[in-house]
């Protein structure tokens, strides 16, 4: 069952730290996701974002960022291998067994993201649409998170 619920996604991830005034993408409300030339930009902190793109877009993303920041204090770091990505279908109820965030549909809506804990492991959640929750987790914790989801689903 867990394998049907969870689908791995191979994506480009680039970490961005900079003053919000010099960003090449639209700055969004805290804990929301904007799009930038077809990429997702996840708000992680007041000066921290995660740019997520399709495979093969890494060089373009890095170049566009470096061009935009040229000469100004910033950090652009390839974190494509630093987190594994799963898409979880219809999983908000399940996540609420081991995640303290308010994931009720009236508060947690598509287009939102958050850094939190699930089953004691650090994760980033991104609600892609009503049914799909994208989970970013450090690869070393990925087996743990899969197992926690399996157990949670089993216990209900």
């Amino acid at each position, binding site marked *: 069952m867990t394998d049907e619920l969870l689908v791995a996604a191979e994506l480009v991830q680039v970490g961005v730290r900079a003053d919000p005034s010099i960003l090449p993408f639209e700055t969004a409300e805290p804990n929301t996701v904007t799009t930038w030339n077809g990429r997702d930009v996840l708000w992680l902190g007041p000066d921290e974002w995660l740019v997520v793109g399709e495979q093969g877009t890494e060089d373009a993303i890095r170049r566009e960022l470096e061009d935009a920041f040229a000469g100004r204090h910033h950090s652009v770091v390839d974190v494509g291998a630093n987190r594994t990505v799963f898409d979880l279908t219809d999983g908000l109820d399940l996540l609420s067994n081991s995640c*303290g965030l308010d994931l009720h549909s009236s*508060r947690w809506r598509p287009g939102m993201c958050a850094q939190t804990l699930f*089953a*004691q492991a650090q994760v980033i959640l991104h609600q892609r649409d009503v049914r799909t929750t994208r989970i970013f987790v450090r690869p070393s914790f990925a*087996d*743990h998170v899969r197992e926690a989801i399996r157990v949670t689903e089993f216990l209900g």
Partner: protein
Amino acid sequence: MSRRLDTGGSWIDRSRPITFRFDEVEYEGFEGDTLASALLANGVTGGFRSPIIGRPRGVMTAGPEEPNAFVEINEPWFDPIVAATMVELVDGLVAEPRAGVGRLAAPAEVPPVDAVHRHIHVETLVVGGGRSGVKAAVAAANRGDRVLLLDERHRVDNAPDGVTVLPRTTALGVYDDGYVVALESTPELERLWHVRAGRVVLATGATERPIAFAGNDRPGVMLASAAATYLERFGVLAGERVAIFTTNDSGLESADSLRAAGAEIAHTLGVGEDPSTAIDGVDLLLVSGGWNPNLTLWRSMGGGLRYSRRLATFRPNGNGPPWLEVVGSAYGDGLPGSETYWLESAEDYSEHFVDLQRDQTVADIAAALDAGLVSAEHVKRATYIGTAIDQGRTSGVLTAAIVNQLLGTDPDAQGPTSARPPAVPVSYATIAGPDRGDLLDPIRRTRLHRWHEEHGAVFEDVGQWKRPRYFPRHGETVDAAVARECRAVRNAAGVLDASTLGKIDVAGPDAAAFLDRMYTNRMSTLPVGSIRYGFMLGLDGMVGDDGVALRLSEDHFLVTTTTGNAAMVLDRFEEWLQTEWPELRVYCTSVTEQWSDVAVAGPRAREVIAALGTDIDLAPDAFPFMTFRDGAVAGVSVRVARVSFTGELSYEILVDGRRGLELWEAVMSAGAPLGIASYGTEAMHVLRAEKGFVIVGQDIDGTVMPDDLGMGWIVRKEDSDFIGRRSLRRADSLREDRKQLVGLLPDRLLPEGAQLVEEDTGRIPMPMIGHVTSSYASPSLGRPIALAIVERGRSRHGETVYAPLPDGTISAEIVPPVFYDPEGARRDG
């Protein structure tokens, strides 16, 4: 003898009879009964014993305040101890009386109940599903709030629409900012709810107060309201010839309801009358000493109390957290006024029970006061009143009142003692929930884990990580495997999965200045392309972590940390940047798992890398020690660092984690003709100890300064600040008799942790001068070696120390801590 009436009982379904066993006797009840109501319906008025002195006891209440009727449930689930008033009757229930003390089941006896956790956020949480609770919930729902209503009973009457109602759920504790932990307990499942509420409404009701008189603990003595409850909800008339002893009108109303159902009220007694004479002539003595608002949760958050003369008890004074509110009878609203009367005067108070579950009487309180105690809190500790499973729900206010009365102080001088979470017992299994077994603490695995498993690795825990400790071949012992792995590194080549080392990307114009403040040595003078080993100190000047810094460009570094301290070091970086030095333009990013770290070491390491194929010039002059190169190895983009934790020629290959396994396998096959072996942390420990390299967390335990390690050179002398610098100049840091790192050559293998003495006098105690921090059988030297921390150790080289142990004393010669290749000749291969 059945005490069940032919009609009545709003909670029971007479069309659904239920069979159950209590104390090895079979009985019948109805669906909707509690175990207590079914026992009373079957005429069981006693059936229980008191925990300490073994007096006969019976059901005294109809709710969670029950102090007597405790049972162990054996079927169809297991509960070591629970009040019979809170057990929902189910078919096939098997219960045994328990005198206040539970026992743990053998695991095989009963299948464990599943324990899960659940998080929920609401605008309004209502605790208590009585009239006031339901009213508050409806009002909140009408405002548009998400509302959760909890009730510890198995049924909530008039449950409103638009409100999530959880019966069988007890609020265990209320915490800051509306965080409430609640236990839902059903026969199938224990669920721990983590509720975050904007507003918490306590509609926890009130509990009738007993009165202290001689024999008030005997079977047949019952709170008056409990008897009325058994009649109204369960159609049970708890007694036919009844006496009532009351300080207030509600007691009379309860008696009236029993009279209307057919009971004879033989005596009506009030303040000043002696109920003990009435007990023998009746089968039920109803007691009502007034009503206490249930304020455990209110008080646990610091909610204030005031004394009400009308109620003769304490009620909330309104001073509490703004998000916490008390309503209904818990606030004191609607409770009947009571005469101020708690204690029937007597010469002998030894049978005037106060806390029935602790078998404590007024005489015990008096004894505590006679011993000089004057505070109800101290009386609680001297008598244990209020510390049993019921946490003093019936005894708390009574004890305070009696303390005030016996001390001759006003009734409001002292209130009840405080109760603490959990409000009802909760099992560790439930607190753990799904975090048990392999999920107890997350297990972290590197990208190469599956390869290690397939190649027989024996793992060890390093923090949350599983790291290969050694790779035994064909039934090798651990010693044989470690010796073989060490020999491979010293004589040919070995490869280690070093991916668990923490890695932090530090970028910005002030990155070098920032690292200068974090490390004892200068990072700002490091040339681009070079690597420097550094110590990070705590504010106390003690070594906190070590690692290397790679300078990627003028304003860009990659620093490594120990495996166990990776998160701590990043937190420390962020803490100083965000709170102390916000003017520094530096961004830190954890990249620990961006990179797999494949560390190839040994005299043939260069041949291994060359065999893989690389565009990096490996010549020692072109690629010297403590530098790094970016390039390709085996067709994969990598960063190769020439650092060494073994003393041998080493190349640590940092590779995109997604290609780590590919590179590792390429190293293994290219190295095979050269005699390469994968090695684990145990061989790594031996190899580094042979070189005198220390490990933070093993040789360095939080009491060790750089100079203690003979590494004073790593602390810069010029006058610029770094964390811990000031502490290095304290008198204690400059003491000449500090413990210092030494090597030991023992006559046999020392146990790590062994204490060292100057002279083995054979008489305990002997003054201890140090201890062994690392100890191994060294394959390279063919003898046991050890590292130790010893008082004035550096001035003792050549001396002998002793480790007196239960199986004999081991003597050891103190030597410098570098055992192998002290000239460093092997570093470049």
